[in-house]
């Protein structure tokens, strides 16, 4: 056995013993612990842990045991089996090869896909089938695509939101380079775009007009405080538009609307980073993004606990480079 592997074995065994010891001393029933942690102990520590379970491990065994086990993580990753060719669809602007799926609409910066094609892209890339409950979440439309990837349900977290693409992209890359994310957590940070209406007044008559000062980014950090956001729409308009950012195809995945039956099916949109929040100037300083429905474009950063972006690789493309924010013109403000 190589030295590195022996080190891993020792660290793993120590971590498992530490968990069992702490559990015994504090009368913690490991059978009642999170299922993944129980399995991890049973299997002798031979698997990566989700952040939630890693935290449970940390609580049970203490930081030192967790850190010792985690120190071997990078080497174990390097020994991982060669990855399959996986992708979330095709890059925009690239000709889809014969035999590939046919989009409903195909423009250089935007494609439209049947929902079943999107399901197939997702399943091919992630290497597993979508469950009925995950499909039901996706059926919520644009917000469903992002919600499914983040947590498999629930509204996407708006705790870390920026007023421009580059700031959010930098934050995502920084999170993914942290010690925790490179050694312990198997979940990656991802980002999503969000278009919405600034005026969240409960009175629809008041809400007709934009609120020029609401949901503006901090001039230094570019973070946007979304605590006052209530998912209210401009009266007579669509409520919002979310787009999940896909590094492998350099595009946002969003939708026309939620699933509304055979007469009004949900159609999945794939748009470039400029097309998704395209600027519409109504004059007089009234700027809208994507559609006239929205006067704010922001970008959220969150952990993807139900989707692994490291599996993403666009069809016909080389393996994705580590996330680096591409130079682009100033984003919409």
């Amino acid at each position, binding site marked *: 056995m190589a030295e590195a592997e022996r080190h891993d074995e020792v660290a793993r065994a120590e971590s498992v013993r530490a968990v069992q010891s702490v559990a015994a001393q504090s009368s913690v029933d490991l059978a009642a612990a999170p299922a993944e942690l129980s399995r991890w102990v049973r299997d002798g520590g031979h698997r990566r842990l989700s952040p939630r379970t890693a935290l449970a491990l940390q609580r049970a065994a203490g930081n030192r045991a967790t850190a010792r086990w985690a120190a071997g993580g990078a080497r174990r990753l390097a020994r991982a089996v060669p990855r399959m060719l996986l992708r979330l669809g095709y890059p925009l602007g690239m000709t889809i090869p014969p035999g590939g799926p046919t989009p409903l609409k195909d423009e250089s910066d935007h494609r439209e896909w049947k929902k079943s094609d999107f399901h197939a892209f997702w399943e091919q890339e992630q290497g597993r089938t979508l469950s009925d409950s995950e499909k039901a*979440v996706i059926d*919520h*439309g*644009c*917000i*469903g695509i992002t*919600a499914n990837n983040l947590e498999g*349900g*629930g*509204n996407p977290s708006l705790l870390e939101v920026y007023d421009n693409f580059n700031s959010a992209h930098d934050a995502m890359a920084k999170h993914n380079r942290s010690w925790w994310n490179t050694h312990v957590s198997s979940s990656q940070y991802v980002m999503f775009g969000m278009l919405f209406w600034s005026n969240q007044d409960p009175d629809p008559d008041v809400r*007709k007009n934009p609120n020029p000062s609401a949901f503006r980014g901090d001039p230094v950090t570019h973070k946007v405080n979304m605590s006052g*956001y*209530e*998912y209210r*729409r401009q*009266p*007579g*308009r*669509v*409520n*919002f*538009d*979310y787009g999940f950012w896909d590094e492998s195809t350099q595009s946002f995945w969003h*939708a026309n*609307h*939620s699933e*509304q039956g055979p007469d*009004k099916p949900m159609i999945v949109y794939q748009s470039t980073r400029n097309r998704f929040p395209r600027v*519409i100037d*109504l004059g007089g300083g009234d700027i809208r993004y*994507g*559609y*006239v*429905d*929205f006067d704010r474009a922001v970008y959220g950063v969150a952990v993807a606990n139900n989707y692994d972006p490291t599996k993403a690789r666009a069809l016909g493309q080389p393996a994705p480079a580590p996330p680096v924010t591409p130079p682009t013109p100033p984003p919409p403000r």
Partner: protein
Amino acid sequence: MSSREVGSTVVIEGRADPAAAGAAVTTDDGEIYYIDGLDRWEPDVELKRVRVSGILRVRAGSVPELPPDELQRHGLVDDTFVIEDASWSPVEAP
């Protein structure tokens, strides 16, 4: 436009808006009319002033208004005016 005119042929004038629920016209007083069956205005018409004629209908909202802690549904919450069998032409701004 009043609800009494629903079902009648109407003529409206306003800005040709690219809206998330499809091509729409927003009149000077802020009333919104969606053009039935038209996803987008042609680029040379978008944001220009147009006169549209057709049959006025009301389209029911397609998603419920949900409390903020529930997973939201993407779409139109409100009932909206729709112009069926619409025809349109550009007009000079007033």
